[in-house]
């Protein structure tokens, strides 16, 4: 159980961060524009941030982010339909290459409710599948706990880094459930179903797990770099959260999950079930 101490501390800190954000906003993660309502605009312009701020002084401009390649990403707060119309026509007449996304506040609320529901349902669904696969409480619980820790820690990191909950980051958190379970299932299957010493089995699994994480990390990292250069906000958001999640997943698989399994195999009733099952 010693292994679990570091993840436990990180988990507690993350839960604290989520709690603080919850008190502040009513949601565990800062809701972004997709859920609060507002307008997001991607443009390519050589104007400076100050110029842009000045030219949109009449509108509730929240932030201007700069990408490379003169790409700018503008966020506006919610406004009424008429103002939306004047703003969009102003943007379209001034910038030819614009991407505009506008979400009304009530639609945002609907999206937010559905996104929360999706997160909860996904998690429950995943837990059921994991329990069905392993049919043995402690190992299944270890996988579910690791996945839970992944999501909570990633969400905590999002709050810390100021990444908001949007449609993209919701998708990324859901995808993390999948990524997280991948290496956990490998570890658990290796430990429960193979013959041999526990430490050797963990080592073998770690070898495979390490390469799994690095290849996935590589693919997502490429996506992250390119979407940053290209100014593709939604892909950038998804890949950022996935990268953070992969790092936490690595820790949770090899410390949290492995720690619980080790305790289960040495002190719990795991010894019995391995000898019953035999290896193959």
């Amino acid at each position, binding site marked *: 159980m010693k292994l679990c101490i570091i993840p436990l501390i990180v988990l507690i800190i993350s839960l604290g961060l989520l709690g603080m954000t919850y008190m502040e906003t009513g949601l565990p993660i800062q809701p972004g524009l997709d859920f609060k309502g507002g307008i997001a605009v991607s443009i390519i312009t050589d104007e400076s941030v100050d110029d842009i701020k000045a030219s949109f002084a009449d509108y509730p401009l929240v932030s201007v982010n700069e990408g490379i390649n003169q790409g700018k990403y503008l966020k506006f707060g919610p406004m009424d*339909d008429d103002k939306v119309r004047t703003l969009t026509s102003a943007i379209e007449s001034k910038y030819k290459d614009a991407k505009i996304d506008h979400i*009304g506040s009530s639609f945002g609320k609907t999206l937010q409710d559905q996104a929360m529901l999706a997160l909860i349902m996904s998690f429950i669904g995943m837990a059921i599948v994991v329990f069905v696969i392993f049919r043995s409480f402690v190992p299944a619980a270890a996988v579910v706990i690791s996945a839970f820790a992944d999501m909570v820690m990633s969400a905590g990191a999002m709050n810390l880094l100021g990444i908001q909950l949007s449609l993209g980051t919701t998708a990324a958190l859901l*995808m993390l459930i999948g990524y997280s379970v991948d290496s956990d299932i490998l570890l658990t299957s290796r430990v429960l179903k193979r013959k041999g010493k526990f430490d050797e089995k963990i080592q073998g699994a770690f070898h*495979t797990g390490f390469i799994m994480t690095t290849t996935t990390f590589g693919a997502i990292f490429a996506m992250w770099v*390119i979407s940053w*250069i*290209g100014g*593709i906000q939604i892909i950038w958001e998804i890949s950022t959260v996935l990268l953070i999640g992969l790092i936490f997943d690595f820790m949770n698989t090899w410390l949290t999950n492995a720690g619980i399994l080790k305790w289960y195999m040495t002190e719990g009733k795991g010894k019995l079930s391995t000898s019953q099952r035999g290896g193959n």
Partner: protein
Amino acid sequence: MIETIKDYRVAIYLIMIIASLIVIFPHPGPSGLETNLQFGLDLSGGSWIQLEYGAAVVTFKNTMPVDQFVSDLSKKLDAEVFLIETDKIEIRKDVSEEELKTIFSGMQTELVAYNKGVTKETAEDIKRILENKINSLGTRDAKIYVITGLNGVSRYVRLELAGVSMTQAQEIVGKQGKFEIRVVTTANQSEHVVFGDVIESVANPAQNPPNSNNWGVSFALTPDGAEQFRQAAIEHGAVKDPNNHNLVMILDGKTVYSAPLSAELAGSLQARASPNLIASTGVGESGKEDAKLLEIHLRNGALPVEVRIAGSGSVSAELGDQFKLWCLLAGIFALIAVGIAVFVRYHEPGIVLPMVMINASEIIILLAITTFFMQLDLATIAGLIAVLGTSIDQLVIITDEILHEGKVPSPNLYMKRLKRALGIIIASAATIVIAMLPLALMDLSSLRGFAIITILGVLVGVLVTRPAYGRIIMAILSK
């Protein structure tokens, strides 16, 4: 080699790849390389608008006669109220649950369920009206999606207009058509009778007389409008000689209806104005269809319920093209990154090449599947790359399971281990599918594509490419 290809897993994989390439059909076209891939708005340029209905579908319980309840409620709300089932009504007004509860309690009625939105039937009507409006403006490449919840109530409708700016899109949706009735004077000359603003109400298409096979739409004019109509009809000869002086309805410059006054109406118009008119559209199914269309025209393209813009967005075509290029680059670099990572681990081109090939071919198969029923947008492409990430994970699991202790086992043991590896893979695939299912079923706008592509990716991987990889890698390693 031949033996490997004959293996059914490898054969299926090869057939899928070839079929996919045929489906995608890359070929040189006037603007560079063309394919059958369907691109969504954010890659091809255009606008979307999502509208929310100001209406509600309500289930109620009371002891009052239903007809009376509906007409009383309609008066109280000053809104159209339609009975859908014996205990369910559609209120075509933006009324909140609280407001309705207060009104209901005054009518000794219990509010059982309240859902914002309209019935599926009304939603389809609205879709038809919007389609018509868009077509009449010459914007051909438009898609309209009725978004219906699991409870059968539709709250939103989404319009996607390719190659149209957001300002134009807002105009199209907000714009009312210009409707005019004219009367034919001589062969191809006509005179103005009334504009659409004098049409007070329009009924749904109905048989006229009732239960006959003759279809028509009745509509009512304001008293002033009816008088104008009468005078024009008398002045231009439509009353005396109806058959040579058709009445013509024109919407945005296009003739949508033309027919003479009925003998009966011509007779009565001489004496007095008639505010209630019926436009007959003919017999049978075609008459019914025409009547539906005419109803839309008579309504000036106005929707039966009020709508608000819930969300909207646009991407310029140039930016869409740039996004396409970046997405392609992201995919290629992701594959290269995967290749490098795998090479560092195995140092064996015989393993690395098939891995990367399988990975790339999974993307090709998925792209081919998307051409049948979905569009590629940015979220879908992010999903594709995320799939690439899980897919390589699973190829690594297979490789490591098989190469246990660095040795290539005998064919017998090999198949046993491959089975075990596939077991792990199926388990993790099942969890990904379950995790993504809520997103695929809900309508969280752009994320549906992301979820569907992830699920498809996992299925293609488990059913086709990973078993094939197991066989291919065996053939290579046992050389």
